[in-house]
């Protein structure tokens, strides 16, 4: 049984919550009492239909204002797989929540209101989807009932979207378009006889047939050490196990591994998963590795396969999305958390801020809430990362404000250097 993680994006009122509600309703995933509860509140609000968006809009403020202000997680299953949906808010102010919801997504569903077509937010959301390197984007053109199920309207939106998307999509990223009516369920889980001109898959069919191969196993083997297991009992007197979740690649018994930063090497003696011993362990598995030699390894270190060592980077260039009201400024020091490694990082330069809908580059001395920019950062200690494009699970980090301890930014690594690169000045 595998898991597919989705996120939804779109402007306020494009119908994200309704679409999710519809997906759940049509897959019989809503228990009777929950359905009755939302039917009753729909009635209280004077609606003559069951407002399925009430299923995910859970906070008091959201029900009062009728908008989604925080990521809600919704679950459903089919015989094929389990789905985890992050229902992200559409309001610009909450872009950081969209990034949060999308950071673990394998499929991004972008909604467009057929009456409004492609808007600034659509570009922003697609831009974020590519920044996060989400392998598959499904563009749902919603509220087709309000444009007479017109094929022309749909086709125009597809070409508008594609004109922009082509410029920034990464190689291998899949984009598909589906005309839907979430309110009535057309092309969500069932087809639509009101749009006979559409011959593609329904949303659910698209999801069910998504190939999950993320090729994480083919990437270099990396395991950040989370915890050193030392039972200190008579039975396991000399036991020393390195516990962690493999972020990419495969580790096998007998593999020679390098511990970073010490660069000491040893051989995997045993891979333990609770009481059982494995011959090999794959990416995303939580295991405990035992080595033949007693080398000094502690939390925050990384075990990698010998010959596949990443560089010890003390200077990085990254895309950063700023998530705090307090602006980011040049020269300021933050905690940078990469995996479970925590280092001090100084903002060396803001290369440029990117305007997501026009892709225009602007110079800046500060980053405001929801800004996306390319930054260079100087690190107090080396980190052992890959670029986000080559290894999604070892190329991201967060920034933590040392004053408030809040998570204030998220970064996607573009370039890694052992030390400050020599500037090529054109005098």
């Amino acid at each position: 049984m595998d898991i597919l993680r989705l996120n939804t994006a779109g402007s306020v009122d494009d119908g994200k919550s309704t679409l999710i509600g519809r997906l759940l309703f049509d897959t019989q995933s809503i228990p009777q009492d929950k359905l009755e509860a939302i039917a009753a509140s729909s009635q209280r609000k004077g609606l003559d239909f069951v407002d399925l968006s009430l299923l995910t809009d859970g906070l008091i403020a959201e029900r009062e204002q009728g908008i989604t202000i925080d990521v809600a997680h919704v679950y459903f299953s089919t015989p094929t797989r389990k789905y985890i949906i992050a229902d992200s808010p559409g309001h610009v102010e909450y872009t950081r929540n969209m990034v949060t919801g999308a950071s673990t997504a394998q499929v991004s569903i972008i909604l467009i209101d057929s009456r409004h077509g492609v808007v600034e937010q659509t570009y922003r959301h697609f831009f974020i989807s590519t920044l996060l390197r989400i392998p598959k984007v499904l563009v749902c053109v919603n509220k087709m009932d309000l444009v007479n199920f017109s094929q022309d309207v749909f086709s125009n939106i597809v070409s508008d979207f594609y004109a922009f998307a082509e410029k920034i999509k990464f190689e291998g990223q899949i984009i598909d378009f589906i005309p839907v009516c979430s309110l009535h369920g057309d092309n969500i889980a069932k087809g639509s006889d009101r749009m006979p001109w559409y011959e593609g898959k329904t949303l659910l069919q698209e999801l069910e047939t998504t190939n999950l191969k993320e090729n994480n196993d083919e990437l270099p083997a990396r395991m950040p050490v989370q915890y050193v297991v030392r039972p200190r009992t008579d039975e396991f007197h000399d036991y020393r196990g390195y516990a962690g979740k493999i972020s990419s690649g495969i580790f096998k018994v007998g593999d020679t591994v390098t511990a970073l930063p010490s660069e000491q090497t040893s051989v995997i003696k045993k891979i333990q998963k609770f009481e059982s011993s494995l011959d090999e362990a794959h990416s995303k598995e939580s295991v405990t590795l035992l080595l033949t030699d007693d080398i000094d390894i502690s939390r925050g270190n990384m075990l990698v396969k010998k010959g596949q060592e990443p560089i010890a980077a003390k200077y990085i260039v990254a895309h950063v999305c700023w998530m705090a009201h307090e602006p980011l400024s040049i020269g300021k020091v933050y905690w940078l958390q990469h995996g479970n490694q925590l280092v001090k990082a100084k903002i060396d330069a803001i290369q440029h801020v990117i305007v997501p809908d026009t892709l225009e580059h602007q110079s800046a001395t500060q980053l405001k809430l929801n800004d996306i920019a390319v930054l260079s950062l100087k690190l107090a200690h080396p980190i052992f990362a890959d670029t986000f494009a080559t290894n999604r699970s070892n190329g991201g980090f967060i920034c933590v404000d040392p004053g408030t301890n809040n998570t204030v930014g998220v970064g996607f690594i573009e370039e890694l250097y052992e030390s400050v690169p020599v500037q090529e000045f054109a005098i």
Partner: protein
Amino acid sequence: MSVLSKRKFPRQLEDEAIYIIREVAAQFDRPALLFSGGKDSITLVRLAQKAFYPARIPFPLLHIDTGHNFPETIEFRDQLAKELHLNMEVRYVQDSINQGKVKEETGKYASRNALQTVTLLDAIEELKLDACIGGARRDEEKARAKERIFSVRDEFGQWDAKRQRPELFDILNGKINVGENVRVFPISNWTELDVWNYIREEGIGIPSVYYAHEREIIERDGMIWPYSEYLHTTPDEIVQRRVVRFRTVGDMTCTAAVESYANNIDGIIEEILSAVISERGARIDDKRSEAAMEKRKQEGYF
């Protein structure tokens, strides 16, 4: 038989939960696992056991005993603690009542469910806990669906939905300010069915009240209430014997039973798949208002 019943447990959920529990042990000085005796917290114990094996779980468990628990739950708790050499801390709502910190509710719907928040917050302070691992799941309830995996609470245990920290990738930020603590939810992404499938595949023991058994009940508001000395009944409420089981196990005064003959895990899973009532639908405490859970969470509830 439903198509979903042959569904296997998605193993990735276990790997993620173990990862989260290890992060807690590594990032915090004084964590604890909040143990309720319900299936979700029993699942957490199993995950914690796996996370540190062959070492013992490196933090205590904390049970807030309302005094209105099912006796079967308490028996199970003590047995589990013995078997796994757990350090089980128990704090009593009765003590908070005796100290005059909370007042026993009165009337037909009196329950100690709300009172336990005070006992919990006192225990967190007394034990100087900086992280409490809980078994809440996002599929349980609308307000829970919005909660982070590391959920920061202020000194008063309050949850502020609008000021939640963003959580990116699988990176967990456990840095907190003095006085704050974190509630951690390793099985956030599990559904009720996932939990039951896991219990089945792992062969995890659970208290007997989850299985069909005959007990004294009363009918009230269309629900089946377990009869006990703690339940305030009115003269027209007649005590009957019925074969029932519990889908969720909280206090005897706030957990409704369902009529059932399911006496093994397979039977329970079949029943859930065909059930029309959600798990929380059996929680009388949630029925108080549409926003009942969110309000209680703001006040520091689990």
